[in-house]
């Protein structure tokens, strides 16, 4: 009687409170899901969410009063609103979702709530793709999915013991792995829109480094410590020599005494462009997002993407800021000269010197002008000045405070490329030669099939206007002070005692970048256009969206059938004994015929089922199953036969089992 009572009381008891193991699993899933988002939150909010998780799993936790719960939710919404001036957008939206997920744990009372939290965790994990699409994100997402599915198993089993964690995780993996082919089919075949469904708002991707569009001493040397990739280049034809690899970026013509910045005319279109025919260097660039407009190219681009513009100072600017990995093809003409005469404001801007600084430099330059006269000679004299005086190329130069030009040229004489480029341009302007600073990247390392250009390859050089024939010419004063910078890359010239740059570590990083490159090339930049060309290897030029959908449906059905088959039959590996295989085949046939012996039934039970299904078949069924039972279970006893006869009999029996006609019910 007592047993009856407890068994009746059981469902209500289960509804009333969740097993502690379930709470632990669900909270672990939720915490794992919000972990990447926590890194982007204000530290106090992140700590608050993490401590709610800890509070919920502690033993002395009790559900707060509903008034307190409502207040917490309102407080969370208020904080997010205050942080972002609204709730609309990627960052506030995802953070709100994280808060709501964790606050839901105050209502984690029944298995329904647990299921809801796990489902919501899947959604939170997916939102992380709005911020990052790297391979690591993908791996993280898979892990989170695995954890979530395992939690669902735990919820459905009504708890778990520590010793079972391993087998539960294996069960979870068995759910994740068969879904991968289906997910791949969806990824490649689900019809894509050629324009994004919603635009991702700019300005939220903070902490992205790169060239900024202006330059003051120290800007580029700060980039030196950033080992992240800037872009990757794959040359389709011949590759130019290393000292020609000047990747042109922002051009800086204005100088206010401290900062170099862009010309006000940089939005004006280029006056003359290199001809397409002369462009002999073709390459494809995979640009990491830097949230600005520049595309990097070798001088001077002749063929470039249609959504970008070439400005009057030959900056290549994309219409929209680069917020995702962008792949583009470019052809450059290295021999082209921008020699259309400059005049008026452009000329003034290229000669402008701010008053009050660089007095000694001005004197030096006017001496040269008076002594040599011709522009080429003055340039040569300036470069000789850099070479003959004790100039050093180093990162940790002293800050130049009052007068960056004179202090550098005459006192400290130590600096990074931006010091040289800036000082050289100043000297040229003081000597009456139009000059400007160009920033960009120089060189790059050969990483197998592509050239990897890192942030640390950022560089600055000068351009001077010589005459109407030669036009603007590139002069790199750094190359005179530290030729290795151009020949071997930035690492060659600066002593880096840092263990971070140990050769093996650099190698690991290069391999990781290869993976990223592959990922960007094949996964991230897979778009509607590439989707329509998906079947090109099979000889089908283009597939439209309807065909894609049809293909997807067919493939999904096929994959589902394979998965179904796998679940149903994969556990049955082939046995070494042909008789056993033939018997298992017979059991499957019986299952298909509707006799349906369970898999734990022994042969005698199966035999009885067959006979009760069709009593007429009794004699032949008994004979066959009797033979099988003796073969399988009486083998090895004193009555067994010699090996040869046995083998012969085994073959006979296997044939009989396969030939057995399943009787029909009358």
């Amino acid at each position, binding site marked *: 009687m007592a047993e009856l009572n*407890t068994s009746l009381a059981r469902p209500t*008891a*289960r509804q009333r409170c969740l097993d502690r193991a379930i709470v632990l699993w669900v909270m672990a899933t939720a915490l794992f899901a919000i972990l990447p988002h926590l890194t982007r939150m204000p530290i106090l909010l992140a700590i608050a969410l993490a401590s709610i998780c800890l509070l919920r799993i502690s033993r002395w936790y009790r559900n707060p009063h509903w008034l307190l719960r409502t207040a917490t939710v309102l407080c969370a919404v208020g904080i997010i609103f205050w942080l972002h001036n609204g709730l609309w957008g990627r960052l506030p939206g995802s953070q709100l979702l994280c808060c709501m997920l964790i606050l839901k744990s105050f209502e984690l009372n029944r298995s329904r709530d647990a299921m809801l939290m796990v489902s919501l965790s899947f959604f939170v994990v997916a939102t992380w793709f709005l911020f990052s699409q790297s391979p690591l994100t993908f791996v993280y997402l898979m892990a989170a999915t695995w954890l979530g599915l395992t939690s669902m198993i735990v919820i459905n089993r009504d708890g778990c013991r520590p010793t079972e964690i391993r087998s539960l995780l294996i069960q979870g993996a068995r759910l994740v792995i068969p879904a991968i082919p289906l997910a791949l089919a969806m990824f490649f075949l689900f019809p894509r829109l050629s324009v994004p469904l919603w635009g991702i708002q700019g300005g939220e991707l903070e902490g992205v480094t790169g060239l900024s569009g202006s330059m003051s001493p120290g800007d580029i040397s700060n980039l030196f410590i950033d080992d992240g990739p800037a872009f990757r280049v794959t040359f389709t034809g011949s590759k130019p020599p290393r000292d020609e690899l000047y990747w042109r970026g922002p051009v800086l013509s204005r100088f206010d005494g401290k900062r170099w910045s862009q010309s006000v005319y940089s939005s004006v279109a280029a006056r003359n462009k290199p001809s397409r025919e002369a462009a002999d260097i073709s390459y494809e660039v995979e640009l990491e997002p830097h949230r600005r407009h520049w595309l990097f190219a070798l001088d001077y681009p002749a063929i470039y993407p249609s959504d970008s513009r070439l400005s009057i100072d030959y900056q290549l600017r994309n219409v929209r800021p680069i917020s995702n990995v962008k792949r583009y093809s470019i052809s450059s003409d290295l021999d082209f000269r921008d020699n259309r005469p400059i005049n008026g404001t452009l000329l003034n801007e290229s000669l402008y010197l701010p008053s009050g600084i660089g007095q000694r430099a001005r004197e030096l330059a006017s001496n040269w002008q008076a002594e040599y006269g011709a522009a080429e000679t003055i340039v040569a004299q300036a470069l000789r000045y850099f070479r003959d005086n004790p100039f050093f190329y180093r990162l940790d130069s002293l800050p130049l405070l009052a007068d960056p030009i004179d202090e550098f040229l005459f006192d400290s004489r130590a600096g990074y490329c931006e010091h040289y480029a800036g000082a050289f341009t100043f000297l040229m302007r003081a000597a009456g030669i139009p000059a400007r600073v160009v920033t960009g990247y120089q060189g790059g390392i050969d990483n197998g099939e592509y050239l990897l250009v890192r942030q640390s390859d950022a560089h600055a050089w000068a351009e001077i206007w010589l005459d109407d024939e030669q036009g603007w010419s590139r002069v790199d004063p750094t190359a005179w002070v530290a030729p290795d910078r151009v020949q071997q890359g930035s690492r060659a010239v600066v002593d880096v005692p840092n263990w971070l740059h140990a050769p093996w570590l650099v190698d690991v990083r290069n391999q990781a970048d290869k993976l990223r490159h592959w990922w960007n090339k094949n996964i991230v930049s897979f778009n509607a256009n590439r989707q329509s060309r998906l079947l090109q290897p099979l000889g089908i030029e283009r597939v439209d969206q309807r065909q894609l959908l049809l293909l997807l449906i067919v493939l999904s059905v096929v994959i589902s059938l394979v998965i179904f088959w796998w679940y149903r039959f994969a556990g049955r590996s082939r046995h070494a004994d042909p008789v056993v295989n033939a018997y298992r085949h017979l059991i499957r046939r019986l299952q298909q015929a509707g006799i349906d012996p369970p*898999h734990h039934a*022994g*042969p005698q039970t199966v035999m009885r089922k067959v006979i009760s299904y069709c009593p007429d078949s009794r004699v032949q069924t008994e004979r066959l199953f009797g033979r099988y039972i003796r073969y399988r*279970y009486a083998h090895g006893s004193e009555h067994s036969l010699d090996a040869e006869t046995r083998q012969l009999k085994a073959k006979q029996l296997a044939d009989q089992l396969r030939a057995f006609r399943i009787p029909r019910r009358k």
Partner: protein
Amino acid sequence: MHTESHSRLSAVALDDSAATDQPAKALLDELGQAIAQVNRIVLGHPEPVRLAFCGLLAGGHVLVEDLPGVGKTTLANALASTLGLDFHRIQFTSDLLPADVVGVSVYSQTNERFAFQPGPIFSQIVLADEINRAPPRTQSALLEAMAEEHVTVDGQQRELPSPFFVIATQNPVDLAGTWLLPDSQLDRFLLKITLGYPSAQAERMLLEQPDRQTLLNNSTPILNTDKLQLLIAHVNQVHVSSALLDYIQALIAASRQHAQIHVGLSPRAGLALLRASRAHALLNHRQHVIPEDVQMMFVALAGHRLKVIEQTDHQALDPSGIAQDILNTTAVP
């Protein structure tokens, strides 16, 4: 239904022309007659009767657990009278002492020395009735004798007769006035049998027929010590194929991995399962064990050995149900 399939099975098994060294058919027939006689006395429980015979042939002891009045004692009495063995019954009570079971040394005036007076345990079949009503000390005396097949009294070891077979009965543990048998001692019983209520038809016959005691008094012994020893020797010769050993091992392993089991089956339980399955095969006139033999014995053998996890809401799970669950989820090799 059951006897029908039984006869069909023996037909299947015995048409094996290669079989030569079978126990004499007459002996097996006598065994069949013995089972039939017990079934005539204990109405409506053919399955527990077969299990009891299996336990006997496997050389193990049997625990019969059920509510009062369903025929536990009748089953034990019927077995004893049919087997033709020397029989004693001990009624366990709360004041029963170990000496009441194993015997005591009494000073004899005539010989001027202590003489051992053997207790009721010195017989081939011992019916320990309501074993869980005796205090643990007395229970232990019996259970030790079961394990060792000898008793030690006054420092002297005395062998028990052979075959030595204990049928213990007990009431369900949650009834008042009982002492729970410890797990280690439960393990001494090869099988635990439950009878349950008889079917309507059997119950009707029970009411119609003369008193059970009369039937018991009228029953004749069919087997004897020698025949039983011979049958037990034959049990050990029943062949077990490697596929079947795999099956037994898989069942034992599954019991240890089951989610609701705290302590699974021991290797000793595996050996016991093997022995009981052999006995079941012989009972069905077979010289080899088939998976069905193992399946028939498994629940009775594992039910009292499995330690179930205590649920959070103090809900006791039925170990026999879990044993059946293990059977249903383990594939036959």
